[in-house]
């Protein structure tokens, strides 16, 4: 499932991004090893060994010169039934559909990042404005509470409203 800047055109503003963030959930090491093997065959550089405990696996796509981050434990994301229900299938290009994180989880993921930057907050504001009446409020608030992000979310909303 896609997360991060690549998903942004679906919910918020359009901006450039230099990397691709993907969230995965893999339960056994054999499957992860297999994923590594396949990616290496496809010319991806993976400097680490398969590890189910790694929060993020960093890859480099040699062919397209693009960094790829595979998140096993993305900040502010709980892999559960509701997360899967909220994800959407995005038409990234002609004949290319990909699962992407839902708008509410996108917001919480951005806010909960340990290394949250100004750009993440800008992204969130753009989603709040564009998806104004389309967000599932109860779900968003519940997730915000789960990750102790409700205060920040409300403060950003207030700012966006008064600007």
């Amino acid at each position: 499932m896609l997360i991060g800047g690549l998903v942004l055109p679906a919910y918020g503003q359009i901006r450039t991004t230099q990397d691709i963030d993907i969230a995965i959930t893999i339960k056994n090491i054999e499957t992860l090893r297999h994923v590594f093997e396949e990616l290496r065959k496809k010319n991806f550089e993976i400097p680490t060994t398969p590890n189910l405990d790694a929060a993020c696996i960093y890859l480099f796509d040699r062919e397209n010169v693009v960094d790829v981050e595979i998140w096993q434990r993305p900040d502010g994301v709980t892999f559960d039934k509701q997360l899967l229900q909220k994800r959407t299938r995005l038409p990234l290009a002609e004949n290319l559909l990909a699962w992407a994180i839902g708008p509410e989880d996108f917001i919480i993921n951005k806010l909960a990042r340990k290394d949250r930057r100004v750009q993440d907050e800008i992204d969130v504001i753009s989603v709040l404005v564009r998806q104004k009446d389309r967000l599932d409020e109860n779900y968003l608030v519940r997730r915000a509470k789960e990750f102790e992000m409700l205060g920040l979310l409300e403060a950003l909303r207030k700012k966006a409203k008064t600007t």
Partner: protein
Amino acid sequence: MLDEKAAVLKTIHANPCGIRELVEKLHWKPERVISLLKTMQEEGLIEFLGNHTPNRGRPKKLVVASTLGAEFLETSEECQKKAIQINHNDIKSAVYQANLAKKLEEYHVSLFQRFWELNSIALKIRNSITVENTSKISPDF
């Protein structure tokens, strides 16, 4: 005061340095730094370590963050994350861009197509700069 202590700890955390170097890095008045360091030492946030160099003169004292200091810095950074980082102009720009995307959506323009166009331009610029820099570094290549 808490912010100032965090600034000192952030500066010395990865690279412990002498007081003079710390003053230069922080761009603060020496008296202010010395007084703050004294307080921080009393509070157990920093330690002074003797750095014996082969040079003549007084051995330089290195200011080092203690374990408590490292914990203080971590907590302080977490607290800072609680606050909003964007300013008024960032918000204005984000609202404008979101409304622009909304308009494109209303006109049935593919936002992903726009995104790929924009991104490919940006990547071409990035790659051309990389090539230019490389050719400057190694003109023989």
